[in-house]
């Protein structure tokens, strides 16, 4: 079976790269599941959402929080470029909860991006908020 070549990159480093069966990303308009053979798309990611990757070697799903960014699909190559990107396994849950609390207490100050990002970090780490 064909696989996708996936690269999840932030400006400071390459967060994850490898072969995958499927990638799930969230755009402003809704969730998008990407499998091999997908048409070329250049899309905007929802700021503060979770990207899920199913590795081709049958391992566990890789989850990552992404901030402002976009993704491109072309010829079974998927690149996710996000200004903030963090793997679920790297998220410091206590720190994420603290930033969620801060975002909630200062609600209304911005457009809720901080809150969405904090929630996405918690979701990526596997602990619901």
């Amino acid at each position, binding site marked *: 079976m064909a696989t996708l070549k996936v690269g999840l990159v932030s*400006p400071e480093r390459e967060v994850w790269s490898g072969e995958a069966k499927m990638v799930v990303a969230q755009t402003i308009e809704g969730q998008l599941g990407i499998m091999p053979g997908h048409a070329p*798309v250049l899309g905007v990611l929802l700021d503060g959402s979770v990207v899920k990757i199913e590795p081709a070697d049958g391992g566990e799903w890789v989850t990552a929080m992404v901030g402002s960014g976009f993704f491109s699909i072309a010829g079974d190559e998927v690149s996710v470029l996000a200004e903030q990107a963090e793997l679920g396994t790297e998220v410091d849950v206590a720190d994420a909860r603290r930033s969620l609390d801060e975002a909630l207490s200062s609600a209304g100050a911005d457009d809720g991006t901080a809150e969405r990002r904090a929630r996405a970090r918690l979701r990526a780490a596997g602990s619901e908020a």
Partner: protein
Amino acid sequence: MPAQIRQLRQQIRSVKSTAKITRAQEMIATSRIVKAQAAVAASKPYADQIVSALTALVSHNVGIDHPLLNEQPEDARTAVLIITSDRGFAGGYNANVIREAESLIAKLRAEGKRPVPYVVGNKGVTWYRFRDREMGAQWTGFSDRPTFPDAEAVGRRLAADFLKTDAEGGVGEIHVVYTEFVSMLTQATQVRRLIPLEIEETTVADGAAAPPAYEFEPTAGDVLDLLLPNYIESRIFHMMLQSAASEHAARRRAMKSATDNANELIGVYTRQMNQARQAAITQEISEIVGGADALADSGGE
């Protein structure tokens, strides 16, 4: 004579302690170059991807319109982003950047524009403040280890100023002066125009794959809205990382030559001191011998 020896000892001690400091600075800089180069390499995948995405987008939407792509000939104010270091002890690093920036500013002024410096790094800020020159904005505190949020702050400010008109304190063009890390021994000061972006017309060579016909989610315009600021921030980040690596390399070289000079000086002083000590001993001996001879001559019998 003993006074001279004491003085030389004192000088040797002080040069030795200076050499220790410069040697330590040199080693610190050497280890940081490696880290700075790793940071440049780590930022490369993102920079490459964003360039290819932008190329794909623009090549399928010829004549696409976006404020950041438009020339603004009506705005005479021109931003010059100058990337310097926070700390000195880096040889000619800052002097080179500022000299290049000043010649660019003079050139822009000759073209009838009004250049405004936007300065990164304490050394550049001090230089302009001392001369009482107007600065558009200034950022300090991260020149030797820039992070993306730093570049983001600079990029946002520049893009926002670009979209304003002259009367609101905006600018019509943005140039950057930074230092490219060529190798450990060579760093080159570079001048680039950042905004408006220039779209190059190229033809795809036979056999090379043209960018695929993308669909855009939600629309090409929305994607461009996001892509362009990110592209600018990524360019600035790249330039800051290059400058940081160059800063460390320049500092390493300056500190190495300072250490070498100090060691040479210690050699010279040590020889002078030995000579003085030898002369003192010789004199003492001849005094004793002379004294004994005189005693033998006068006393006697």
